[in-house]
C-alpha cells in the first residue's frame, strides 16, 4: 500500500475515497483559513489531497504572505572551495577522499576570477561551501573571509553549511557558538541551509553517517540565528527516507523557527542519483510539487519558499510558482554539486526573466535577506 492516495478528481467523491475526501476538505478548510496545520492535517493534505487542491491552498498562502505579483531571485555563484571531504555521504557525487588525484583546494587567483565574474554579471553574493577538509585550520577560513571582505566590501558572503561548522567545532575543540562568532567576526554574512538532507537521525545515519546529526544541524542554525546570522533551510528528498520523514523535517524546522525567526527561506529539492552510491530512480515532478506545496503550508513562519530549477529544470520550476514558491532561487552562475550527479540545466538571466514573466509575475533581483537590489538589472527580452 502506498502512503499516497491515487490521483482522483478534486470535485467528486469516488466510493472508497469518501472518507479521505471529507478529511481533505476539512484539512483544506483549516489551511484556507490561515490556521496553523498540526501533524495530522499536514499528513492528510500531503498524502491524500489531489495536486491541484494542494497548489491552490499553497498559492493562496503565498499570496497572503507576498501579495505583490513579484517573483524574486538572487544573483550569486556557488563556489566550492574544496571537494576534499571525509564524510563520504552515499548520495554525493562531488566529494573526493583526501588522497584522491582529483582533489583541489581553491587558490586566491581562482577565487578572485570567480568573484570578479560574478560581479561583472550583476551578481551580489557568493555561496561558499566545501567538503569537510581534514587539514585546513580554522584560520584558513578566517583569512579567506577577511580577504574577501577587504577586497570586495560590497560582496555578500553566504557561506558554510551547518555540517562544516559542526565539523570545525569538534575538530578544533571549541563550541559551535565560538566557531560562528569567529567566522562572523572575519566577515561571514549569512549561512546557507545545506547539508540538512533529511532531518531525521535514523535516515542520516544511513545516508550520511559521518556528518552531524539532525539535532546538531538544528543547533548550529539556532546558534547562528542568536548571533544575528540569517540562514536558509533546505531538504533533499527522494533517497532512502519515507514520506513521513519529510514531514518530520518540516516540523523540526518550524519548531526552531518559532524560537529564532532566523530562516529566510526554505528550499526543497529532489535527490539526483546519478554517479552516487544510492540506487533509486529520481522522483518525478509531481512528487516534487506535492512536497513543495506542503512545505509552504506547514512552514507558516518561514517567509519564502524557493523553487529549484537547478534540479527540476526551468519548466517545472516555473510551475512551482503556483505551488507555493515565491522565489526562483539563484542565477547560479556556477554550480558543481548537482552537475556532478549528472544534471545540468542552464538558465541565463534573460531566461529567468522570461520564465517568471510568462507565469504572470514580475522578476525582481534581491539580496540574501530579500531586499530588492537597486538599481534593478536592465534585461532585454
Amino acid at each position, binding site marked *: 500500500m502506498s502512503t499516497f492516495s491515487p490521483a*482522483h478528481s478534486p470535485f467528486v467523491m469516488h466510493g472508497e475515497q469518501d472518507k479521505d475526501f471529507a478529511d481533505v476538505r476539512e484539512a483544506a478548510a483549516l489551511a484556507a483559513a490561515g490556521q496553523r496545520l498540526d501533524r495530522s492535517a499536514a499528513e492528510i493534505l500531503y498524502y491524500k489531497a489531489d495536486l491541484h487542491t494542494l497548489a491552490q491552498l499553497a498559492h493562496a498562502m503565498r499570496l497572503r504572505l507576498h501579495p505583490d505579483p513579484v517573483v524574486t531571485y538572487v544573483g550569486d555563484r556557488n563556489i566550492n572551495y574544496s571537494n576534499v571531504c571525509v564524510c563520504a555521504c552515499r548520495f554525493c557525487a562531488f566529494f573526493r577522499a583526501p588522497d584522491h588525484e582529483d582533489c583541489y583546494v581553491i587558490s586566491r587567483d581562482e577565487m578572485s576570477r570567480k568573484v570578479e565574474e560574478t560581479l561583472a554579471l550583476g551578481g551580489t553574493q557568493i555561496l561558499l561551501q566545501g567538503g569537510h577538509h581534514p587539514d585546513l585550520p580554522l584560520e584558513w577560513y578566517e583569512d579567506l573571509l577577511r580577504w574577501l571582505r577587504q577586497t570586495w566590501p560590497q560582496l555578500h558572503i553566504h557561506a558554510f553549511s551547518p555540517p562544516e561548522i559542526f565539523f570545525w567545532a569538534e575538530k578544533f575543540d571549541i563550541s559551535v557558538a565560538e566557531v560562528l562568532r569567529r567566522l562572523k567576526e572575519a566577515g561571514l554574512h549569512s549561512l546557507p541551509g545545506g547539508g540538512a538532507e533529511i532531518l531525521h537521525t535514523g535516515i542520516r545515519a544511513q545516508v550520511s553517517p559521518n556528518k552531524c546529526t539532525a539535532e546538531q544541524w538544528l543547533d548550529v542554525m539556532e546558534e547562528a540565528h542568536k548571533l544575528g546570522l540569517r540562514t536558509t533551510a533546505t531538504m533533499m528528498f527522494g533517497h532512502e527516507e519515507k514520506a513521513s520523514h519529510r514531514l518530520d523535517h518540516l516540523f523540526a524546522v518550524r519548531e526552531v523557527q518559532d524560537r529564532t525567526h532566523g530562516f529566510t527561506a526554505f528550499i526543497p529539492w529532489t535527490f539526483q542519483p546519478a554517479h552516487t552510491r544510492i540506487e533509486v530512480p529520481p*522522483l518525478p515532478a509531481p512528487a516534487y510539487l506535492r512536497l513543495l506545496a506542503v512545505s509552504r503550508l506547514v512552514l507558516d513562519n518561514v517567509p519564502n519558499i524557493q523553487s529549484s530549477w537547478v534540479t527540476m529544470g526551468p*519548466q517545472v520550476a516555473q510551475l512551482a510558482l503556483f505551488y507555493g514558491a515565491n522565489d526562483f532561487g539563484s542565477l547560479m552562475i556556477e554550480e558543481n554539486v548537482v552537475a556532478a550527479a549528472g544534471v545540468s540545466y542552464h538558465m541565463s538571466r534573460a531566461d529567468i526573466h522570461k520564465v517568471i514573466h510568462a507565469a504572470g509575475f514580475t522578476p525582481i533581483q534581491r539580496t540574501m535577506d530579500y531586499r530588492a537590489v537597486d538599481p534593478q538589472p536592465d534585461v532585454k527580452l
Partner: protein
Amino acid sequence: MLDAAYYAALGLSSIHEKVLSGQRLSFEDGLALFHCPDVTAVGALALHVRCRLHGHKAFYVVNRQINYTNVCVNGCTFCAFRRDEENEAGAFALSLDDVLDRLRDADSTPLHLDELHIVGGCHPTRPLAWFEDMIRAVRHFNPNLPVKAFTAVEIEHFSRLEGISTLEVLRRLQAAGLVMMPGGGAEIFDEELRPQICPHKADATAWLRISGEAHSLGIKTNCTMLYGHLETYEHRIDHLCRLREQQDKSGGFTCFIPLPFLTENSRLKLPEDKVGPQRGLDQLRTVAVSRLMLDNIPHLKAYWIMMGHKLAPLALWYGADDLDGTIIEERIGHMAGAQSAQGMTIAELEHVIRASGFTPVRRNATFNTLNDTDSPEARQ
C-alpha cells in the same frame, strides 16, 4: 478551495458547471480557459474529466519507432528532420532489411513489442508496393505485433504518386496488415496559417477526410496538433473543434497528442520572446484545454519525447492519461532539438507513473489493455 465559488471568482462558473455535468464546451469556453491565468484551476477541471474517463490509470506502451526515411517532398518550414534528396548530408532511407533488423533487435526478449510505429518523409520515388511489402514482412516476422503506420499526409502522398484514390491506398495497406494510423501531419488546420508552415502538405480538408476514410474501413487513428509557433489561441481552439466535429462523424480517433513546436533546429524562426524555456505552463495548459474540448476522443497522450521527461508526468495531472512508451529510437523530435533521451525502460515508465500518483497500465497500439495475464509468456 476549488469549489463553485472559486470558479465564479475566475469568471468560469458556467464552464465549471458544464464540466461537472459532462456538457460540451463551446469555442468561447475554450478561449476563456486559455486566457485564465490560474493554470491550477484549468488543470483541476481537466483532471476531473481525465479521472471520469480513466480513473487513476496511466497507460504506456512497449513500442519501437522506425522512421524509414527523412527524404521528403513537402518542405515544411518547421521541420528539422527532412532532407530534399537521398544524397544530401544527413539524409537516410532505410531498406526493407534495415527495417527488419531494427525490429528483430527490439522484439527480442525481454522487451516483446506491443506496437510498431512507422512513419517517414514523403519519399519522391518509393512506390506503395514497397510499403505493402514492408508491412507484410513485419507481419510475417511477428503476426501478433500491431503495425501502426503512415499519417494521413503519407497516405495522400502515396495516392498522388500512384494515381489512385486515398481510399484505395488505405484498402491496400489494410490488406497488407495495417491496423492503426498515427496522428501526425495535422499540424494546425487554419487555412491561412497552414500554408506558412507546411505549404505542400495535405490540407486540413484532405487530412480530416483521409482520417474519416480510415475510420470507415475500421482503421483506428490518432490525431495531433502542432502548437507554439505562429498560431493564436483561436487557431488552436479551431483545430480542436474540427477534430471534435470529425470524431462526431467518423468516431475512429483513439488518442489526441498535442505536440509543442521545438524551435532549436527549425528553419521557422520565431521572435525572441517566443523562444526559450518559458513555455512549460503553455504546454500544460494546452494539454488541459485539449482534454476539456475533445469530449469524444478517449485518450490524450503526454508524448515525453516532445514534452521532455520532467514535464510529461505532470501532464497526467493536467488531463493526459498516456505517456507513450519505450520508443527506443526517435529521430524527428531529436533532429528538431528534443533534449529527451532516445528511450525509456518499462521499469522507468512504471516508476514515473507510480511516483506521480497514478497506476501504470500497459497497453498495445490500439489501446487494448494488457494486464498481467498478457505477459509475453502468457501470450505465446
